[in-house]
């Protein structure tokens, strides 16, 4: 909402300075976006100084000037003026300026082979005089310290631009703003002059509001103005329209716009001679069409509120008028409309047709239904004054009577809500200034709500009115109440933070990427999940919700590789979507490592990252987050985007359905499809939701502390075993021989090839044996050894290597 201070003062008697008004507006909830002069074409012309004028290399009569325009660097301008010389202060027009004399727009141009940035101006070019022989010579004493400043003072009045919240349609007019300011003590609201307009004759175009279901119009007021001379608006009106940031059109259109912004009362003027007999306000039928004032043709759906005549649709009520009945300079007789349209209906129609106009913006927020006549009178007066003509009696058709809203307000609610007290007297004064009609019934205030405040429907709205006018600075700052109702974080929230920082501590950079991604990349990772398209994506390559973290993570990994980074570890923790309903999402960590370990190390051998690097990262992170490491089981079934032979799944125990995590190399086909160029690429993912909450705090879950001081022995075994036999199983077989005595089993060598039969491998394990009860003698140890060998041989088909 834009307006000038002068315009405001048409409605408000105030001694406030401009800055006080600006502050007050913000303090009462009418946020000032800006307070600036409207821009002028003359703003671009600035004071400049010629630093150095030398002869143009290709033209003796032209000069090449280095010009100081108040920036870091001088610019070069080609100038033909004989008086251009070193040290001269003059006026400079940069490219883009419009020269007043010929209305030409300057552009960067080459003059005789040398580029000239802008131009130095003569008085005649700026319409200051007829002097055209040379460029302007400015006086040193006046302009020497103004280099870079505007040459022309911008005399246009400063415009206040307010950002009006959707609950305040009344402040979409200057009078409403003035009323709010007066309530806040910024002045006195001027009383509207009583109109002494003389009416002659009746409005003889018949108006009918059809009683239909969901009729969007409840009141249609109008008058006829006969014998007008439409013309260009007078300067004062043009200036008002310009200050709104709009273009003046003709007196009649400008007047209706002016009244709309002045009183928040949209009006519409028809060329009465173009109306076919009568006005019918009705619902549209699907397929009807009309050409609107924006020169577009609209095809209507059922049940849109239209103003029509016998020939068809004239316009969309409260949204936009039609071209067929628009006023022109030649218009002689006009029908002026001032109506009430229901916000819901306006909103529905304008959304369907995608039209946004100032009238629509106002009607959908709610126009004062009692302002019908005020609007007609104010506009008629102005039309008569500017365009002449005779005004008919006002004709108001309605199918519904306005009912005043009454609210019973207990002033205690104010203190209960805001925490501070305002005397009843002041409270009533504020409400009355805002236009409320207040009567007292014991402690309760009976309030009649002003017709221009559709937003006020219940007592809490009254609290807001009082506190915003009184000022939010009166609200106390209470000490925060520290009472705690439950622990800050639950198990999964803690897990989130532990795992996030645990993964980062392994050298991964955390990133945050969009929750949406490119369906083409998502396709590679979605497995059996349904694709979740976004109906209105921001771009075609962000058109689905991500089913996995990896589409984005690998996309950005590639970008970093392309930037020249070779060794990259990245991860993200966030949602992966499994369906389109609320809650169909999992919290997942996705991580990727590319490149080499120990690259360019002078003492370590460099090698490509591999599956066991990420296996360490994932397992260690799970341990650190509190998952019992003895429970963890590894499997080799993984999603299809993993390398089928070099990837694994992690389970919390062996009967678990969902893997907690996967790790491994990414499938070579995907690397190829995504055109990722790197020596090695391994990934892992952790599904936080699949980790089981132990429901026990550490203080309750620690087992008894036991240790053995009896001597421990270590024995090494090497078995020849089927190549596909899993080491995890071998370890389990050994452990199960005697889980009291066998403290640990560690695979320390795996070997295939020379001396090992085809299809077999050699696995060497180190077994630690220790009793909690005694020192084991040779005999005991020998028995265990034998048991280990026989168990392994019988259960796995392995042979001990001799």
């Amino acid at each position, binding site marked *: 909402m834009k307006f000038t201070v002068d315009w405001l003062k048409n409605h408000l008697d105030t001694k406030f300075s401009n800055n006080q008004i600006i502050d007050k507006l913000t303090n009462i909830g009418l946020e000032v976006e800006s307070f600036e002069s409207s821009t002028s074409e003359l703003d671009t012309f600035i004071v400049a100084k010629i630093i150095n004028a030398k002869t143009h290399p290709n033209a003796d009569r032209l000069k090449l000037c280095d010009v100081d325009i108040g920036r870091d660097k001088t610019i070069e301008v080609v100038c033909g003026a004989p008086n251009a010389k070193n040290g001269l202060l003059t006026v400079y027009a940069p490219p883009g300026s419009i020269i007043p004399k010929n209305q030409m727009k300057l552009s960067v141009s080459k003059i005789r082979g040398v580029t000239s940035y802008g131009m130095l101006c003569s008085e005649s070019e700026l319409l200051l005089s007829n002097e055209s022989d040379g460029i302007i010579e400015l006086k040193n004493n006046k302009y020497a310290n103004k280099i870079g400043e505007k040459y022309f003072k911008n005399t246009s009045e400063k415009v206040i631009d307010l950002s009006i919240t959707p609950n305040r349609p009344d402040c979409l007019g200057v009078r409403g703003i003035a009323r709010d300011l007066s309530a806040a003590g910024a002045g006195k609201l001027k009383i509207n002059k009583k109109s002494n307009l003389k009416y002659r004759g009746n409005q003889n175009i018949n108006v009918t509001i059809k009683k239909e279901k969901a009729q969007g119009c409840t009141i249609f007021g109008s008058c006829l103005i006969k014998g007008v001379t439409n013309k260009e608006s007078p300067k004062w009106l043009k200036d008002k329209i310009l200050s709104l940031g709009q273009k003046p059109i003709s007196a009649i259109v400008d007047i209706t716009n002016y009244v709309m912004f002045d009183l928040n009362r949209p009006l519409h003027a028809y060329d009465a001679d173009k109306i076919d007999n009568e006005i019918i306000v009705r619902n549209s039928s699907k397929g009807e069409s009309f050409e609107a004032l924006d020169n577009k043709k609209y095809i209507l759906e059922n049940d849109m509120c239209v103003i029509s005549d016998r020939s068809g649709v004239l316009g969309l009520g409260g949204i936009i008028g039609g071209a067929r009945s628009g006023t022109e300079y030649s218009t002689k007789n006009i029908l002026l409309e001032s109506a009430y349209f229901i916000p819901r209906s306006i909103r529905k129609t304008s959304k369907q047709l995608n039209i946004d106009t100032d009238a629509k913006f106002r009607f959908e927020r709610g126009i004062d239904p009692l302002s019908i006549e005020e609007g007609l009178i104010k506009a008629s007066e102005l039309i008569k004054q500017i365009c002449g003509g005779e005004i008919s009696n006002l004709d108001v058709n309605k199918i519904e009577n306005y009912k005043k809203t009454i609210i019973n307000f207990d002033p205690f609610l104010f203190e209960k809500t805001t925490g501070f007290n305002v005397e009843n007297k002041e409270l009533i004064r504020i409400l009355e200034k805002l236009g409320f009609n207040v009567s007292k019934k014991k402690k309760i205030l009976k309030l009649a709500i002003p017709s221009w405040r559709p937003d006020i429907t219940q007592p809490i709205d009254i609290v807001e009115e009082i506190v915003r006018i009184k000022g939010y600075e009166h609200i106390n700052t209470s000490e*925060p109440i520290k009472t705690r109702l439950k622990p800050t974080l639950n198990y999964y929230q803690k897990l989130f933070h532990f795992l996030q920082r645990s993964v980062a501590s392994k050298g991964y950079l955390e990133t945050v990427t969009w929750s949406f991604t490119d369906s083409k990349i998502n396709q590679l990772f979605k497995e059996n999940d349904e694709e979740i398209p976004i*109906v209105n994506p*921001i771009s075609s390559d962000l058109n689905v*919700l991500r089913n996995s973290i990896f589409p984005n993570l690998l996309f950005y990994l590639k970008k970093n590789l392309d930037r020249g980074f070779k060794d990259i570890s990245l991860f993200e923790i966030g949602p992966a979507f499994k369906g389109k309903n*609320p809650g169909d999402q999992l919290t997942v960590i996705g991580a990727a490592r590319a490149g080499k370990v120990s690259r360019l190390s002078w003492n370590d051998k460099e090698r490509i990252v591999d599956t066991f690097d990420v296996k360490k990262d994932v397992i260690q992170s799970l341990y650190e987050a509190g998952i019992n490491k003895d429970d963890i089981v590894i499997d080799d079934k993984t999603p299809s985007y993993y390398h089928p032979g070099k990837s694994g799944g992690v389970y919390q125990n062996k009967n678990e359905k969902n893997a907690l995590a996967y790790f491994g190399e990414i499938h070579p086909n995907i690397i190829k499809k995504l055109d990722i160029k790197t020596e090695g690429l391994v990934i892992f993912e952790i599904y936080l939701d699949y980790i089981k909450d132990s429901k026990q705090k550490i203080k309750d879950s620690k087992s008894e502390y036991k240790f053995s001081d009896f001597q421990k022995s270590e024995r090494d075994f090497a078995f020849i075993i089927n190549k596909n036999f899993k080491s995890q199983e071998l370890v389990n077989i050994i452990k199960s021989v005697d889980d009291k005595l066998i403290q640990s089993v560690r695979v320390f060598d795996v070997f295939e090839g020379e001396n090992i039969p085809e299809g077999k491998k050699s696995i060497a394990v180190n077994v630690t044996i220790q009793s909690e009860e005694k020192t084991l003698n040779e005999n005991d140890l020998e028995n265990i050894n034998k048991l280990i060998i026989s168990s392994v041989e019988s259960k796995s088909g392995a042979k001990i290597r001799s």
Partner: protein
Amino acid sequence: MSDIKKIKDDYIDKLNAENNVDKVNNIKSELFGKNGIISNEFKKLGSISVEERKKLASDLNNVKDELQNKISIKIQEIETKEINLKLEKEKIDVTLPERNIEIGKIHPVSQVIDEISSIFSEIGFSVEEGPDVENEYNNFTALNTPDNHPARDMHDTFYLDNNKELLLRTHTSPVQVRTMLKGKPPFKIIAPGRTYRSDSDQTHAPMFHQVEGLHIDKNINMGHLKGCLNYFIKEFFEVDKIKMRFRPSHFPFTEPSAEVDIGYEIKNGKIVIGEGNKWLEILGCGMVHPNVLKNVNVNPSKYQGYAFGIGIDRLGMLKYGINDLRAFFETDYRWLSHFGFDPLDVPSNYRGLSR
């Protein structure tokens, strides 16, 4: 006696000249071995008179002690010398680089969420979450923003179906709805998370982060709201004083509503929070609208309280001097390394919010 003394003097000289442990050991057996010179002298004791024996034995013992002592000192001396010589040869260039360090980082958004959670935890708030995909009811209708409400235009919503039933939440406020629907008052929660709006330019991203706050109890008023936010902003920016302004505004789900500005100035091209005469809007808040409370089965005549919504990314930008919002989500390795936080830097009250 003179014999013995001569032996002693000879061997002391010998030992002094010696530099080899093996040779010293040879001398040792020469003297004290089975047929060693000293051992033999001891053997002679049996064949002399008692008186002489006494004296000779004493002298012999003295010489023995002296020589043995000399031998052990000598061995130690030589060994020390040898070790020092060996260590001298083993000297390495310790200025060569250590094994490669892999440094991971926490994203600024995550760090700021942790900072915010830590601050609100201090005054008794707990953390709630809600889904990123919401239904139209929780995101709008329950929050007193019916379908025909112009306030909906302020949220450019991503939809997942043509009926506009399913959407990506445009703010974290639906978590209020979910929290209150599943529990009984009082409520005291914050809800950080991802939010989505379909606009994208230099200062807007289609995805960003908000933290919602909600405190509902019997007598929570706007003074508590002001106190809570004043506390939060001071703690967050780690300053003693903060210039803060509550300005009336409008949100359909709160009434009265306010926007909060903080004072700032630009010093040497950097933004300084809490001083100066410029205002920066950082959050929206207000008293939860009675209609919202009714929608979630809370009796507004018994319970009342406040809610607020803060842009997390924006706060992070202000605190850590980050200029470009879009860079948050572009995964530039250089940016993440530059603005990321050490994983051990867990914001907490006792150890400080940030280093």
